[in-house]
């Protein structure tokens, strides 16, 4: 009996910790900045693909090193996702602060673009993009030195844009004609790719009749580290203080000399980086594909909403509770617990498959939000300026 309870708690917590890892970045971005980031799942996907790439880079290094690729992958996944998040914030989201619905639509578009990007990315596309960005933005930067730049800005763009598009396109088609498949072959393609966990993460720790998988333990440890890191960062560092103050009152913070734009960018990059780490973690459990992120996005929003927007502790409790409930219903423990009361047992047996458990969890969340619309830990006092 004891091992089975242990096993239950372990499994529930492990589902919860994956939810938490995925929701942590979202909670920061959604909770602290009021941005509904639909591309969060795709940032996870980028982290997962980064893991795949790092794994393949480490493979030729041979035995002892290739087994530790996961640590490099975690760092790289964080960096790649944070960089993409930074570009996203600078390019799109900063124009949309205070308009949550617009951020939803814009980031949803970004998520579709990212999905298609990993399906079709190849050397020609990269070369074209680099050439285009170099010519267009480089050209603009050069022209900016002219005194009459602001006045003629539109004309410069009018000339530069089609010119750099044409040159980029020309170079792309030249490349693909010259080298054929070697440059036009997609890096990843539409098919899912597979990340193999290092050997020391395969298998599990035997406890009685049960075995606790090492990958799950690794992910739980990672989650604890991430939560502790975020807590430390937000509460003990100067930039954390700035983030919290901008969250509470943007205009007052600006008056006091806090660079709010830098804070926004930093917060978004941080949230995105956490998504990257989550992507790296989930790649150990399943396979990696363009749709990987979509499997998680609904669950992560669920966690953030149940926890209470803007509260880290709410996100943590929300994720663990949802994970536990999901497991308890899905694994038929409730059906077992109520086996003495026949109708209740039948009721829970009906929901005791993984896909029906999802229905039940959704239902419970809807019910819960009827009683506590602001979540477990509602934001008190002044709300986010969104």
């Amino acid at each position, binding site marked *: 009996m004891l091992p089975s309870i242990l096993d239950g708690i372990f499994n529930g917590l492990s589902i919860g910790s994956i939810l938490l890892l995925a929701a942590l970045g979202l909670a920061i971005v959604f909770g602290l900045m009021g941005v509904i980031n639909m591309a969060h799942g795709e940032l996870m996907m980028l982290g997962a693909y980064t893991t795949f790439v790092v794994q393949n880079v480490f493979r030729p290094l041979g035995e002892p090193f290739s087994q530790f690729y996961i640590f490099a992958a975690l760092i790289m996944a964080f960096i790649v996702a944070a960089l993409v998040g930074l570009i996203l914030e600078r390019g799109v989201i900063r124009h949309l602060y205070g308009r949550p619905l617009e951020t939803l639509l814009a980031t949803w578009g970004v998520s579709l673009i990212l999905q298609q990007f990993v399906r079709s990315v190849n050397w020609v596309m990269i070369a074209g993009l680099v050439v285009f960005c170099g010519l267009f933005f480089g050209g603009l930067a050069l022209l900016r030195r002219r005194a009459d730049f602001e006045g003629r800005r539109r004309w410069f763009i009018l000339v530069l844009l089609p010119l750099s598009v044409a040159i980029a396109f020309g170079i792309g088609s030249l490349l693909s004609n010259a080298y054929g498949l070697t440059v036009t072959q997609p890096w990843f393609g539409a098919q899912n790719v597979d990340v193999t966990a290092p050997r020391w993460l395969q298998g599990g720790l035997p406890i009685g*009749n049960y075995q606790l998988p090492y990958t799950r333990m690794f992910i739980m440890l990672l989650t604890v580290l991430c939560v502790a890191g975020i807590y430390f960062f937000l509460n003990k560092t100067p930039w954390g203080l700035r983030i919290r103050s901008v969250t509470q009152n943007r205009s007052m913070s600006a008056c006091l000399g806090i660079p709010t734009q830098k804070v926004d960018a930093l917060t978004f990059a941080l949230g995105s980086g956490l998504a990257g780490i989550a992507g790296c973690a989930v790649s150990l459990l399943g396979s990696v594909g363009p749709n990987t992120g979509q499997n998680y996005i609904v669950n992560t929003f669920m966690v953030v909403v149940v926890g209470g927007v803007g509260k880290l502790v709410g996100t943590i409790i929300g994720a663990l509770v949802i994970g536990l409930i999901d497991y308890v219903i899905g694994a038929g423990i409730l059906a077992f617990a109520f086996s003495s009361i026949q109708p209740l047992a039948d009721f829970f047996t009906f929901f005791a498959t993984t896909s029906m458990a999802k229905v039940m969890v959704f239902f419970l969340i809807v019910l819960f939000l009827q009683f506590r619309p602001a979540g477990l830990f509602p934001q008190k006092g002044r709300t986010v300026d969104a």
Partner: protein
Amino acid sequence: MARQFGRRRFLMYGSAALGTSVLLKACANGETTSTSESPAATDAGTQVAASPAASGDAIKVGVLHSLSGTMAISEKSVVDSTLLAIEEINNAGGVLGKQIQPIVEDGASDWPTFAEKARKLIEEDQVVVVFGCWTSASRKAVLPVFEEKNHMLFYPVQYEGQECSKNIFYTGAAPNQQIEPSVDWLLENKGTDFYLVGSDYVFPRTANTIIKAQLEAKNGTTVGEDYLPLGNTEVAPIIAKIRSALPNGGVIYNTLNGDSNVAFFKQLKGAGLGPDRYPVMSVSIAEEEVKAIGTDFLEGQYAAWNYFMTVDSPANTKFVDAFRAKYGNERVTNDPMEAGYISVNIWKQAVEQAGSEGTPTDLEAVRQAAYGQTFEAPGGTVTMNTNHHLSKTVRIGEVRDDGLFEIVYATDGPVDPVPWNQFVAETQGFTCDWTKTDEANPGKFKA
């Protein structure tokens, strides 16, 4: 402010939009050449273009599979083998002296898209036949289209049966050619306690209904069943339930489809449920999937199919060699790929016997001519029955350390297909025969 939205700005944004659309179009072109036209497809395409096809003197056929999404892992290879069969036939002079021109469409693992693309192939491209679909959900989605248009689909994947459409030729296994014999074999060799795991859609649910009825009839026990939404990877509750339902080991019958398999086998191994005590019998995992999931996680597990790459026959050697010559030496062949290859050849033979291409006017002649066609397939001789299914040999394989299957069981010869299941109460005794014009409904009647 108002002046800023004048002509200049309009011009600027207009040209920007134009430039962007040119760029996007370039990317989109690059994408179609790279995804839907694998190296192989490009070959086939150029070959067809050089042939009379371009001048309109070609027979257009549709190939409809998921080239993207969760099912692409499995379906893309069927496209490859279908195109191989078409190329072989074209190189040998084509059908009725005409070249076959394949039109490949992507169903994107999305059932409404499948229906849409099927309609497009039939109405716009005017193809005479469609080869395609993998999941039963996609087949169920296109079925009304094919019946409404009275058109023809060759479906290359094993399925749950309980269907017998006049407009579909099923070249994969019916349940009695895969599921039933594998359950019998498990009962005889691996134990009587079964746990059923499947994706949550029509194939696994129907297959499990059949298995449960069969186990009941043959003194086996179903200790539990569980379903996972397609594409979901959270299998921890399932593994825990398996362990509590089968504490001392037992048989796991796996009807998961697509990527969920990767998560299932990875986490099964992590939880310490090995093939020695928990043998898994899969019906949707073949050589291609083993390669993608990783042999580490699958060694010692079982799969039931009609064809394995390791089948020892001259026809198979020829098939594998031709496939590898076209697509590269690291590629593997599997059952649905073989069925895709058979589909094209059976269709070709029927067209030649009927002396006409088929749709839209004389689909009936081709359909009649298809009955009784035999083909020396890589997996052994197959025959098209009047119930639109093939007689095929049944095999069970165990995953070896090289990712291929050791054939541990095979029937002596082809097994005749039974689309309406004889274990399930509501279809017991029903049969299907599309030559019985005297029957009110030749698709389902009591013999």
